[in-house]
């Protein structure tokens, strides 16, 4: 019976029976392992309902942040830790694809996902959510000090904004890497004034570099008692500040500098790990990640945007969200090709001035 179902799924997914997902297939007694980073949050009910409908038992395995998780997946490629991996983003995508970590799967649900998100034309990975890494600022601090909020990356070099910015080390931190890529997209790697000149300017203006997001946000950011009123975080962080406020808030305590090209778009993907023994169940799970219920559940849990079109956004998003019109972008293939060089150049300029 199971063999038959498997054949059926393969037929369906190869496009012979368009429009019929694998969701309706029962996976009685199947345990599906999902490798995810530590920021993978969801409402348990949503997953439980999927388990009830599909019959499978989903076991989530957590493996640190996205970089650490990817390393573990690459090391265990021959005998994978899980069947599905969730949370590799466009800054790490090329490495995952080069390591031939995934087997292709074109989910029928992709029809509802705009093409701009499907970076891999061979469907080895499926885009699940996206968000923007953006500079946040402490609204109260700027009001109290009567300084206008900077609106462009250039302004951060202005002596008026000396010692106000804290960023993460791009070697160790994913938002840190995204912010570094933002500067590369803006200032380029060729010509008289490159991104490295920009960073030299930031160093001149006393930028603070710390190891990770947590230290930047909860130790150095002035909103939590630190000294720096501008921090590299996400465009949705102010929404989280409202949602997770101990007392209801009228306005978000943080703002976002969302002008053109000062943000960087991160797209998170899921993929079926090569050597998985539960391919059909894994395909059903990918479909589930793109399903209406899971997509609608993501924003308030992970503070990301669903890739599925017309997914209703929660009120907090529509009320407190800051629209990001144009993100900076660096092709993911270039990121992989030059990442090491860029990181070394960055370290040369910023860490050993």
């Amino acid at each position, binding site marked *: 019976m199971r063999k038959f179902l498997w054949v059926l799924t393969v037929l369906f997914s190869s496009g012979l029976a368009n429009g019929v997902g694998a969701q309706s297939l029962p996976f009685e007694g199947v345990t599906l392992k999902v*490798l995810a980073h*530590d920021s993978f949050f969801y409402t348990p009910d949503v997953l439980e309902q999927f388990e009830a409908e599909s019959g499978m038992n989903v*076991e989530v*395995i957590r493996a640190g942040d996205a970089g650490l998780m990817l390393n573990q997946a690459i090391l265990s490629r021959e005998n994978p*830790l899980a069947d599905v991996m969730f949370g590799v983003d466009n800054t790490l995508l090329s490495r995952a694809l080069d390591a031939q970590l995934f087997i292709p799967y074109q989910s029928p649900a992709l029809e509802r996902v705009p093409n701009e998100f499907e970076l891999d034309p061979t469907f080895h990975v499926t885009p699940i959510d996206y968000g923007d890494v953006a500079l946040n600022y402490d609204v109260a601090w700027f009001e109290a000090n009567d300084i206008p909020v900077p609106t462009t990356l250039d302004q951060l070099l202005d002596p008026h904004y000396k010692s106000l910015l804290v960023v993460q080390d791009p070697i160790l931190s994913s938002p840190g890497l995204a912010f570094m890529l933002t500067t590369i997209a803006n200032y380029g790697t060729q010509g008289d004034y490159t991104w490295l000149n920009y960073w030299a300017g930031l160093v001149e203006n006393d930028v603070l570099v710390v190891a990770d997001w947590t230290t930047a946000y*909860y130790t150095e950011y002035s909103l939590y008692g630190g000294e720096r009123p501008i921090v590299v975080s996400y465009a949705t962080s102010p929404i*989280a*500040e409202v949602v997770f406020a*101990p007392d209801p808030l009228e306005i978000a305590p943080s703002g976002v500098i969302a002008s053109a090209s000062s943000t960087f778009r991160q797209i998170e993907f899921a993929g079926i790990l090569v050597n998985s023994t539960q391919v059909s169940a894994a395909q059903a799970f990918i479909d589930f990640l793109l399903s209406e219920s899971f997509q609608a559940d993501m924003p308030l849990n992970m503070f990301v945007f669903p890739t599925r079109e017309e997914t209703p956004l929660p009120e907090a998003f529509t009320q407190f969200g800051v629209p990001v019109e144009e993100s900076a972008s660096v092709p993911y293939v270039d990121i992989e090709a030059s990442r090491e060089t860029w990181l070394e150049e960055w370290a040369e300029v910023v860490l050993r001035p």
Partner: protein
Amino acid sequence: MRFPHLFGRRYAWLVPVLFLLICFIYPLFTILWVSFNWAGGGMLALLTDATTWYVVGFTLRLASLSVVATLLPALVASFVFARYQFWGREFFLSLSLLPFVMPISVTATAFTALLGERGIITVWLQHALGIELDLAQSFTLLILVHIFYNYPLASRLLTDYWRENGFALEPVARVYGASAWVLWWRIRLPILFPMLASVSLLVFAFSFTSFGTVLLLGGNRHITLEVEIYRQAVGFLNFQDAAWLSCLQLILMGTVFAGYGTLQRAWLSGTRHRPQPLRPSVTLTDNLWLGGVFILWVALLLPLVALIWSSLHLGGEWSWAGYRGLFALERRSVLTEPPIRAMLHSLRFALLTTIGALSLGGVMAYELRRMRSRWAGWLDWLFMMPLATSTVTLGFGFILALDEPPLNLRTSFWMIPIAHTLVALPIVMRTLLTAWRAIPNALYEASRLAGASPLNTFLKLEFPLLRGAIVTAGMLAFAISLGEFGATLFIARSDFQTVPLIIYRLLGQPGGNNYAQAMSLSVLLLLLTAFGWLGIRFLANQDQR
């Protein structure tokens, strides 16, 4: 002489050795082997790189200065705790392990609240004394945090050892007119020397492999080998350099452990004396000692107070919100189950670790206590090596090596207690072994002459003398497991979140409630440790008032 032996023929040591082979050496060699097979630069390139030697130099400097900076206050405190009876002695002792379980992100927050640019102490120094303090990302700050983390371990071990082997000779020495100077140099320190050396070694190993502290508080100028391994492996995804650096770290620490081993052969004979009753503080000197220790304790507790303060103080107002969220699951934080459940996971892991580390370390220490062969030295050395190993490297090793039945452990429940046991085992074994070797040969001879069986010798002679050391070792293992973060993070884990991991996840998302819950959970972790400690002391009836 022949020593009594519980297990008849000497095969019991196989159990801990097998554990180490399977759960430590095999994964470690697998990851190193795989990494070396990959393309890239080799050891030579790394060894000729100036950065490598800068990092090695910095690591050595940090570790040695941490030892000195930790041992001086620990020596003073343990002198007072081992000698004097005073009000609050038990209370202060029970607080002694707390910094051990503080997650590093939380410690970083607490230290910044105290010593940051606008920290309470910084501001006070500036206003009251006109001193400008700039400790942000400084070497001094790293040393302070290392004292904070290592001082409790050091003072705890020294206090117990001193108490057991203590001050019996002193009245005699005084009769012969020994000055205070002579007392310290000729009597106290020599008696204490074995434990002093053990403690130095442990503190050195901890500081040498310091990861979170240096990563989060050191800024970019301060990089230990352990941090560099992480940067290479996770940042640059350069497994080969990471593996070579891991080897370098193993070689350096291995040499230090070997040097220690050579030294300790000199102390194989026991120096044990009867514990003396605690005495009240009478003279001015007594009270000066007490006062000094009191100031030390206040300084040590300040970061904990800062933590409690920030767990109750949200956005400028007093609030219980952080604590409320811990018990009932509200739609107000990122967590999907009440964090209090992670507490149960953590407790379970801590108990398993305590049992595992005590039994394995106990058997090993029993076997090694009087062994004089070259094997003994090697085994002793081998059991220290987990302390020298980069946790991120070992974590990757687990994933590669323990992936086939019957050892398909890598995502199982057992992986976490195994990793915690590996971290705790060297400390437990060191503590027990040092105490065991302090039992004088004469006592064994007496017991043999009296015709006692090995079992009787163990039950009637060794166990009572070791009870204090066993309790201390057990509690250290318990606390290590409760607070362990580094190794746990690098393990792919199924639904078993420990408290430090939950705190890490909470602090990975923006929002006042997440922050407040992380702080409150840390306070709860401290309380749990303190009560656990008091409980175990009570059960073990260790109150020797």
